[in-house]
């Protein structure tokens, strides 16, 4: 028996019956998702007051299973959009939940995350974007960076400094920013691997109505850590083709494909930044490098690490399902391992390719994939928290080693920071 008192069997029956009555692939995507939300199946793990049914993770999984069997399309909940909805759900006012959650589920609104700044990368709480209240409106000035999908986002979750005299973690506030306004300029940011997956966002007197401050003035850091915890749990994970395996006919699928094409575009090189361990053995066999004893040693090391990481994260996943607390450290260990594995994979790909690694593009090894690996792997140990930050977290939170001296106490305006 579960909270809402339904067994998986009962759920399956109910969902199946509802889909039989309502699901059709000839509807428009928005139309269908509105039916979905009204039916209460868009986010069954959400509370009943807000489009959900208060289901447990397991119950929700049962629902998803039936949707997949039927090939029925679910709610739009991928990428930053999902971080926004979970944060609003956790910290938002009743009014904010009513206004923002539904269009996220239906896919009418896309969102982006506006946390990092040129001056504060590892040190997120050092944000120095200014938020000042002028007759009932928050006026925002500053620059954000690493903003995935910002160029086509309708709204952004934004961290800014509303008080410069408080200590750095206490002077922050968290806003829901309408991106469609003159004060917001979005510029694409090109990476060393040639992709433009991110943006810079410039705020010049951008406005946020008082009611779109979330979590209360000065509570920005608490709200931000909520968002980050979802991100660490992989909620922000890049979108997958979920729901449209195989060739399916119907308007709703066409529109979903289009939606996903936009949503997945920034992430096309992410598998490469992880080193593509899957390509190592095939490449080693086809090139004959698998006969090279020095390369064999490195491949064996790589297989060992990646097997260990896969097993360890599976067991963490299991523990999490069983409801453990130590999610963040486990995440940090896994993230650190991912860096080591990606670098080793890149090293092995280099040994295998030899002089061919001087080339790139369609004519080069694996149609350019190998070259893309070699110049994308440096991102894995930086994005989403550098290796150094992960090691700090592991040593302090898991091993309980003492913190060093902090140089960022006292009023924020007195703390040494980058001059931009």
């Amino acid at each position, binding site marked *: 028996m579960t909270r809402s008192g339904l067994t998986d069997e009962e759920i399956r029956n109910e969902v199946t019956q509802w889909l039989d009555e309502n699901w059709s692939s000839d509807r428009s995507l928005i139309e269908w998702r509105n039916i979905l939300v009204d039916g209460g199946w868009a986010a069954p793990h959400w509370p009943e007051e807000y489009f959900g049914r208060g289901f447990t993770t397991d119950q929700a999984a049962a629902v998803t299973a039936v949707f997949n069997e039927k090939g029925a399309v679910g709610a739009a909940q991928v990428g930053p959009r999902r971080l926004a909805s979970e944060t609003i759900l956790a910290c938002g006012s009743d009014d904010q939940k009513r206004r923002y959650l539904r269009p996220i589920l239906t896919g009418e609104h896309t969102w982006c995350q506006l946390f990092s700044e040129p001056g504060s990368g590892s040190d997120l709480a050092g944000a120095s974007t200014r938020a000042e209240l002028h007759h009932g409106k928050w006026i925002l000035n500053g620059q954000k960076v690493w903003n995935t999908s910002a160029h086509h986002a309708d709204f952004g979750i934004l961290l800014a400094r509303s008080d410069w005299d408080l200590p750095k973690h206490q002077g922050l506030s968290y806003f829901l920013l309408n991106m469609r306004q003159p004060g917001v300029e979005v510029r694409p940011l090109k990476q060393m691997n040639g992709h433009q997956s991110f943006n810079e966002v410039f705020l010049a007197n951008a406005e946020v109505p008082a009611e779109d401050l979330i979590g209360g003035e000065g509570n920005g850091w608490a709200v931000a850590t909520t968002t980050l915890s979802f991100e660490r749990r992989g909620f922000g994970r890049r979108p997958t083709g979920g729901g449209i395996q195989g060739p399916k006919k119907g308007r709703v699928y066409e529109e979903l494909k289009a939606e996903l094409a936009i949503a997945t575009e920034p992430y096309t090189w992410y598998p490469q930044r992880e080193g593509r361990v899957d390509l190592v053995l095939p490449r080693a066999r086809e090139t004959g490098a698998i006969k090279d004893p020095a390369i064999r040693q490195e491949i064996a090391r790589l297989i*060992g690490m990646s097997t*260990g990481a896969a097993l360890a994260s599976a*067991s963490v996943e299991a523990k999490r399902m069983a409801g453990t607390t130590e999610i963040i450290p486990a995440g940090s*260990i896994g993230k650190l*391992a991912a860096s080591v594995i990606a670098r080793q994979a890149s090293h092995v790909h280099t040994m295998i390719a030899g002089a061919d690694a001087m080339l790139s593009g369609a004519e080069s090894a694996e149609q350019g994939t190998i070259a893309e690996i070699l110049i994308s792997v440096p991102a894995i140990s930086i994005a989403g928290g550098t290796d*150094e930050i992960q090691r700090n977290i592991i*040593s302090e939170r898991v091993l*309980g*080693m003492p913190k*060093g001296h902090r140089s960022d106490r006292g009023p924020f305006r007195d703390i040494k920071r980058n001059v931009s």
Partner: protein
Amino acid sequence: MQAEFSKEQQLFRQVVARALKDNSPSSAVRDLMASDRGYDPAVWQQLCGEVGLGGIHIPEAYGGTGFGLIELGIVAEEMGRTLYCGPFFASPVMAGLALLNAATEVQKEALLPGIASGSTLATLVLDDLNDPDQAGRSTQASDHGRLTGTAGIVVDAHVADLLIVVAKTRDGRGLYAVDRHAPGVSIDSLEVLDPTRKLSRVILDSAPGEKVGEVSDEALHRIWDQMCVALAHEMIGGAQHLLESTVEYTKVRVQFGRPIGSFQALKHRCADLLMELELARAVVHHAARCLDADEGEPYAASMAKAMASETYMNAAKAGIQLRGGIGFTWEDDTHLWFKRAKSSEVFLGTPHLHRERMMTVVEGL
């Protein structure tokens, strides 16, 4: 295939850990490593009797508890943690696994119960501890079961009653049981790098042996895999102890007006160690499950041995380095684990040999 430890297995680990905590403090380890015999018979009897450690992996039909490598691994891991000095690895693990994999039914019934109960101390005489394919190379068995040859390194032979010998026969390899006191058997204790594991040279000069089974290449590799997995568990147990004790030390040791554990260089080194250990531990536990279930990666044992060896050595080096001069003294305990780490690294194949062995399998997949 099992993915996590069951409640029973977790409970069993606690029982073993408590028994070893009580019976194998570092003071005891230091006394035993300084002694000729190298272990305490009373303690060993107790561990075999009360906790049944001698036959944990031996079927009940042969006087054991009938568990598998997972449970054997739990015992080895806890022993590695406390550096328990005793005939566990020689008798139940090495000799026991050899008999389980290669002996005839009759011989299992005859020999395993004594090993399980601890009343018999056996050991496995292998004339090559680097490469299974070389085993028996220099030990010849005559058709009448007379054994002649030298094994340069044999664990705990100095206290063994029964020698289980792998020898070359006319048409392959055979497994032989030899009475330690039989004519033609000479056993010389050797000076060792790791004083917590006693080693001897065993010389057989047409010593009478009873053939207890055939040893096919496949059986030999299975025995080798199982021994490596047990050893790998011992190693991650030791690595775990080193990481814990080293981290604790850095929390209390003060230099430059602060605990040295607050220096980022030390924090990051410990964080890297933990990560490495997590990966190795996952692979080692997985390897035991693979062998028990006869599923999974056929190279899991070599992968586990290689990773556990490097993790243990890295933890041992850090254990001494982070303690500074104190860590290099005899008085400090760290070197006891360092020496066990070093000798385990090369025992049953160095990491690079296991990576090569692993790739031979991978290549064939």
